[in-house]
């Protein structure tokens, strides 16, 4: 069509200017710029979420009211949850690293629908603004928790409409990203790159995209019904009008459990890229990892009921969901075994991304194994809705996704910005962050088993000591975060120039200059018979 404009192949995407100033970003359909736009907007929102988290921990440093009362605490944990779940961890790896790397890793010049890709970012921003509007305007910040459970979500007098609509809109952005990725992977792989020669990060994005596509609409319609319920009183989830609030929980978790895999699958995919590079070895069990990715995506679709064991579901449903939940543990464990086996007899080079990847495995194991406690019927009754649950999902969602995210950003940093960061500070940041993380969330396992409920701004005197440790941990972790971010931001501007392939990686992104040119490849690479993603 409009191919008259010649796109230079020797200018990096960061230097290439088509428009003036900021329009180079917000009008760009370059997947790499869009990925970075997601990164920058997400980081901004992330700091809001972190600040709210710190506020909660500060409130819990002592029993009784410390800095806020109960209603404010409810609002804070709601907004913290909505921001962190819908705006950070769900789009996190797919939208940032997926956008940036998927086309390069499969040898394409862009995603299949670049304009749609840009549109997804705008929809994302719109959703984020709607949620923020619900905080700034109207009568009272939403206080339902991020789950918007019926019937409270249409009885609460707070300003819920924009928040729920915002979550609905964010879902749309997620769907379009997923759609784009599936078509890209189906149609745009480099010649000769068969399905079983595709690297594991794109594979994980493929599994993720299917979940985004098939699960998100269900929560979309559910949230829409809550909006209609609030506005017109249609009665679908209102017990006073014959509705069943538990059905809301079913529909909500039909999406929101698979959403956990939207978060964790690409995280696992990034780990599967980092480990072979830093052990300089072919990944162990390439096909097993693909199989487990698809199995997790598939089985993960049918386990949603484990969030509802105490809601009054039928016994049959409870057993079934419990068994299915245990099944998901198998493919997850397969991945862990494969990562460890890849390290065995490899020439491990202890660099920052490897530290993050290794600690990811450790943190993810704690999170995963504590998940079994919650997936088993008898033990779940005991710790349901306690701090134990909060600890568990922060180990998975923040530990799993966060550690992988930071690993990924340290791994691909030289590729993205064409510069190197300061390794010493990066390692220090990792160490401080990890110590803080463990100090923050580990005490919550104990607190939950002692019976401290979640979502209260107050607690009994007997829980005091562990809560102090947890709050101190939150400070240490934030300190670590500050070190990491300052180091990266500074290095993106002033770091020493990075080579094309500083880690001796074998996937395609390391065959293009750092930072990559606008259309990634001067010549589309061709995969031969013997080529593969991890040939060391």
């Amino acid at each position: 069509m409009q191919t008259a404009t010649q796109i230079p192949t020797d200018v990096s995407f960061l230097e290439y200017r088509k428009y003036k100033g900021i329009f180079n970003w917000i009008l760009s359909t370059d997947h790499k710029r869009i990925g970075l736009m997601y990164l920058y907007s997400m980081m901004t929102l992330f700091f809001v979420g972190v600040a709210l988290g710190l506020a909660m921990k500060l409130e819990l440093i002592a029993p009784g009211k410390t800095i806020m009362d109960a209603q404010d605490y409810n609002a804070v944990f709601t907004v913290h949850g909505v921001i962190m779940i819908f705006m950070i961890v769900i789009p996190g790896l797919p939208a940032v690293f997926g956008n940036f790397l998927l086309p390069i890793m499969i040898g394409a010049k862009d995603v299949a629908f670049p304009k749609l890709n840009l549109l997804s970012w705008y929809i994302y921003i719109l959703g984020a603004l709607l949620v923020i509007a619900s905080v700034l305007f109207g009568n009272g910040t939403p206080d339902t928790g991020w789950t918007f459970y019926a019937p409270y979500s249409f009885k609460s007098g707070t300003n819920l409409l924009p928040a729920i609509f915002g979550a609905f809109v964010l879902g749309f952005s997620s769907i379009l990203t997923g759609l784009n990725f599936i078509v890209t992977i189906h149609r745009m792989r480099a010649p000769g790159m068969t399905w079983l020669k595709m690297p594991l990060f794109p594979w994980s994005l493929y599994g993720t995209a299917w979940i985004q596509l098939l699960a998100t609409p269900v929560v979309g319609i559910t949230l829409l019904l809550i909006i209609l319920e609030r506005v017109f009183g249609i009665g679908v989830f209102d017990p006073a009008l014959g509705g069943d609030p538990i059905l809301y929980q079913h529909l909500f978790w039909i999406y929101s459990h698979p959403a956990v895999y939207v978060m964790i699958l690409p995280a696992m995919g990034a780990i599967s890229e980092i480990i072979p590079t830093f052990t300089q070895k072919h990944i162990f069990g390439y096909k097993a990892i693909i199989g487990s990715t698809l199995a997790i995506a598939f089985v993960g679709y049918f386990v949603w009921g484990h969030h509802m064991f105490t809601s009054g579901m039928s016994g049959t449903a409870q057993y079934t969901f419990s068994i299915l939940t245990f099944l998901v543990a198998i493919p997850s464990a397969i991945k862990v075994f494969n990562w460890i086996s890849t390290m065995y007899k490899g020439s491990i080079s202890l660099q920052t991304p490897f530290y993050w990847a290794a600690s990811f495995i450790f943190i993810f194991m704690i999170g995963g194994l504590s998940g079994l406690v919650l997936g088993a019927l008898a033990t779940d009754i005991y710790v349901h809705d306690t701090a134990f649950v909060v600890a568990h999902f922060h180990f998975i969602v923040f530990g799993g996704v966060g550690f992988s995210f930071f690993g990924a950003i340290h791994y691909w940093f030289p590729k993205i910005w064409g510069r190197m960061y300061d390794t010493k500070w990066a390692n220090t940041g990792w160490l401080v962050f990890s110590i803080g993380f463990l100090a923050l969330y580990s005490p919550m396992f104990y607190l939950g088993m002692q019976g401290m409920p979640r979502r209260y701004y107050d607690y009994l005197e007997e829980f005091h000591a562990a809560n102090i440790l947890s709050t101190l941990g939150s400070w240490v972790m934030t300190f670590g975060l500050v070190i990491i971010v300052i180091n990266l931001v500074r290095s993106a501007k002033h770091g020493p120039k990075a080579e094309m392939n500083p880690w001796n990686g074998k996937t395609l992104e390391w065959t293009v200059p750092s930072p990559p040119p606008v259309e990634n490849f001067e010549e589309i690479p061709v995969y031969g018979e013997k080529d593969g993603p991890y040939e060391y």
Partner: protein
Amino acid sequence: MSNEKHHIVPYRTYIFVLLALIVLTFISIAITHIELADYTVAGALILASVKTFLVLTFFMHLKFDKPYMRIMVGFVLAVFLAVIIITFLDYYYR
């Protein structure tokens, strides 16, 4: 890659499919007017599924598309069915 052959469906195929769909509609109206108790719902749903199958295969060209398209559609419908069945494990046994 872009030179995939496209099958041109003759107009009369569409007319036959439409006639079949209309006949099925009338059958389903007729069936639900007879009292078959529990079987009414099943009958109406089976007829609707047959109609959907016709629309998917002919109007939506699945018959002429590559097999993986059919696999995807089948997969999505299967996932949806499984979700309904699992939801009913709760409601049916409550």
